[in-house]
């Protein structure tokens, strides 16, 4: 054992949320003066873990030691008083105030009189030292996102942070700003600061990290040396090697084209291109898996197909019928089922009961809807039947949907979508955050749909899931399909690299 205590040590940390085990017996150490990357897919538990260090959450089990001393923070204030600062993905700045004002916000001093001259000198010194150029008089709203991030970092340094946690800091930055940020981070470690860098981008992790800890499904997969590791190794650790369960399925017997996406482009919510001339065909009776790191156009793709987002160009057809930019009702009538990524926020209405949630897609047409009415008797009997058939565990159909566990809610959503005998099923991260049992039944439902003759488009980050379910895998990167790979275990490194944006010799041209 070394004599110098770790800057941060986490022992046996477990954190549960209703229905989700976010962190499971995590042991994690960070040495003084290192840049330690915390790598993992979305939902792997990175942010949860760090929010416990930052005092936002409290661990259900386990111990946190800072410089060898056990600590229990009850708020971020507590954490920063003990030298732990966190820069969140969404900045915590007051837009109408100046940089200087934001820096002293919430500080114990100054108590009444603000010596701006001295404050600005301090800021200038800090900026100088760490290469964080920023104008102290500027109002936050006038600054670019990159500059705002610098203010966040300055704020933490000014408030005395020795351990700085950065939650996906590069997500919002331009390449040049990323380079500058990395320079700053090195500057900081040179002066004795310690940095934890949360990311799911392999390139950056390899470029900056001294050590890398990979989280997967809430557990530490491994900690490796940042200098000697490779992107391929990290990709494998991140998406998992071990096959937990493999679904039994017969070879696909694809028939006619069920869903055709023909050079479709669209924009994301911020008006930036999300899909760029993307083309893909899904045939009846096959599962096409889309691999890719979240944020490369997955959500937008599902929305464009289902009529929830406008395509700026291109064409989407379902069984020969053009549904491009048709209202969502048209795609529903065309037999499109959509299992959205956000079960609570999109896929269900949390305060309505299960019966009401089961008719979201069918209330409009007979037999459920007739004329202006809804047949309440049928709604109820059908709900009871579906809950039985799809094994949704609930005391009654009158339960509000929000009280279901994640797995049961997802089964409810599948029951609703599948019971309509869809021709195409779009499933986005269908098992994210679910336990093994639920994962298995949901995968089985999707395969059963395939065998019934539906075309399935499976969007996932989990390569295990993709390999287990898909008949073909394509990789989506920055709004384009960058390659197609057969679902074979030997190809996993290749997929991982394509997900990270590295072009690989393509086995099939699409």
């Amino acid at each position, binding site marked *: 054992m070394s004599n110098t205590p770790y800057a941060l040590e986490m022992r046996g940390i477990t954190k549960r949320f209703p229905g989700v085990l976010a962190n499971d017996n995590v042991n994690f150490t960070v040495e003084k003066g290192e840049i330690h990357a915390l790598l993992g897919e979305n939902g792997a538990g990175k942010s949860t873990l760090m929010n416990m260090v930052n005092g936002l959450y409290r661990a259900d089990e386990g111990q946190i030691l800072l410089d060898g001393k056990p600590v229990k923070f009850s708020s971020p204030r507590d954490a920063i008083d003990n030298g732990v600062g966190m820069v969140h993905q969404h900045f915590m700045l007051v837009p109408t105030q100046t940089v200087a004002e934001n820096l002293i916000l919430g500080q114990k001093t100054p108590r009444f009189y603000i010596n701006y001259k001295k404050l600005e000198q301090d800021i200038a010194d800090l900026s100088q030292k760490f290469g964080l150029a920023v104008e102290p008089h500027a109002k936050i709203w006038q600054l670019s996102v990159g500059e705002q991030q610098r203010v966040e970092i300055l704020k933490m340094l000014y408030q005395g942070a020795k351990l700085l946690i950065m939650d996906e800091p590069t997500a919002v930055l331009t390449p040049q700003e990323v380079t500058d940020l990395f320079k700053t981070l090195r500057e900081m470690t040179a002066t004795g600061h310690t940095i934890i860098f949360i990311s799911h981008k392999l390139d950056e992790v390899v470029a900056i990290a001294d050590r890398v800890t990979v989280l997967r499904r809430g557990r530490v997969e491994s900690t490796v040396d940042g200098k000697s590791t490779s992107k391929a190794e990290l990709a494998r650790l991140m998406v998992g090697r071990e096959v937990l369960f493999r679904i039994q399925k017969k070879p696909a017997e694809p028939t006619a084209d069920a869903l055709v996406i023909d050079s479709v482009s669209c924009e994301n919510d911020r008006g930036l291109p999300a899909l760029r001339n993307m083309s893909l065909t899904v045939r009846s009776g096959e599962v096409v898996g889309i691999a890719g790191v979240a944020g490369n156009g997955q959500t937008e793709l599902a929305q464009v197909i289902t*009529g929830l987002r406008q395509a700026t160009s291109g064409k989407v057809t379902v069984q020969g019928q053009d549904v491009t930019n048709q209202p*969502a009702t048209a795609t529903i009538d065309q037999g499109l089922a959509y299992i959205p990524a956000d079960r609570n*926020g*999109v896929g269900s209405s949390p*305060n309505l009961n299960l019966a009401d949630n089961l008719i979201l897609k069918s209330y409009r047409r007979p037999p459920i809807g007739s004329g202006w009415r809804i047949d309440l008797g049928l709604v109820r009997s059908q709900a009871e039947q579906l809950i039985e058939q799809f094994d949704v565990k609930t005391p009654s159909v009158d339960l509000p949907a929000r*009280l279901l566990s994640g797995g049961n809610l997802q089964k409810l959503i599948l029951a609703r979508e599948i019971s309509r005998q869809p021709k195409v099923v779009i499933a986005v991260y269908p098992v994210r955050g679910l336990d093994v049992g639920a994962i298995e039944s949901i995968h089985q439902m999707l395969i059963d749909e395939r065998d019934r003759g539906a075309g399935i488009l499976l969007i996932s980050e989990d390569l295990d899931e993709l390999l287990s379910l898909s008949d073909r895998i394509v990789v989506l990167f920055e709004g384009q399909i960058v390659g197609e790979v057969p679902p074979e275990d030997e190809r996993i490194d290749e997929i991982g690299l394509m997900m990270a944006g590295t072009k690989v010799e393509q086995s099939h041209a699409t």
Partner: protein
Amino acid sequence: MRLKIEPRLEIPRWLPVVSIILALILALIIGAIPLAYGGLDPFEAYYQMFRTGFFEPYSFSDTLVKATPLILAGLGVTIAFRMRLWNIGAEGQLFLGAWAATGVALFWLPPTTPKVVMLAAMTLGGFAAGALWGAIPGVLKAKLGVNEIISSLMLTYVAVEFNNYFVYGPWAAGGFGLTAPYPRTAWFPRLTDFGDTIPAFRGMTAHLGILYGIIAAVILFVIFKYSKWGYELKVIGDNPNAARYAGMNLSRTIILTMIISGGLAGLAGMSEVAGVVHRLQENFSPGYGFTAIIVAWLARLNPLAVIVVGYLFGGLLVGGDAIQPAGIPLLIQGIILFCVISADTFTRYRIRLVQPAATTAQS
């Protein structure tokens, strides 16, 4: 010892009812303080209020008269609030409804028009004008994302001044903020009109408007419970994203809801001028449109409960007239709303006393 507030997972059915009753009792207790300060014996004052509002020979009829606009406007508020569309401009929609009914009665139809035609035209006009006034914040919200709380409230002031312009200007009779009285054909039938055949009805001023209220409540109840549209309101109110996902047309539903919400408030105004005032005048409403918000909230947005709560508040208004100073009923209404909304927190959260670990409590 420390107070800890936790959300309740399940809300027992009895809890909301009990919490409202407790809130009402608490409101009356708090209300006793200003009453006592104003030199009144609170017990005596409350006794007088309840006696006048509910237990005098004419209480039932008088209270129905006051309850009528509260019920109609309360239903309007209910339908908007059901989909979390905060239309707080019922007062303005009510003024517009009264204005249009007056236009029909005095200026746009001859006084010789048969009563049925006249009343039907006034009803349509009142509904349409209120609906229009409700549609404006609805369209602004649906198309441009304008906050309906602000726009509907601001439009209320516009409606009141619009009304003032007409009663002092083009439609004034003598310049006192009143129009000329309506011809008899534009009066809602009242109970007292049947006094010749049923002597018990003599002097009772309850009018046709209350039937409007009851019918509207039943229709809304059926819509909410059995119709596709009621289902859409429920989903949109709970989770607009899920509604969009299910293919519901949010803009259209928002606008339609505001039209009906405003239309019902317009009917409240129309029924008030056709049934009680029989002319348009300045300030003919003592804030019915605002009290309607309290009524809808207390009724937990259940249209049938709106009838009951509307009646209770009608009694409070009638009883309030019996005690002086005159601001008291409004004051008590305010305290009631405050208490009911506060009590709502207790239905959704439970409060526990927790012992902080390892430290001794000091007082």
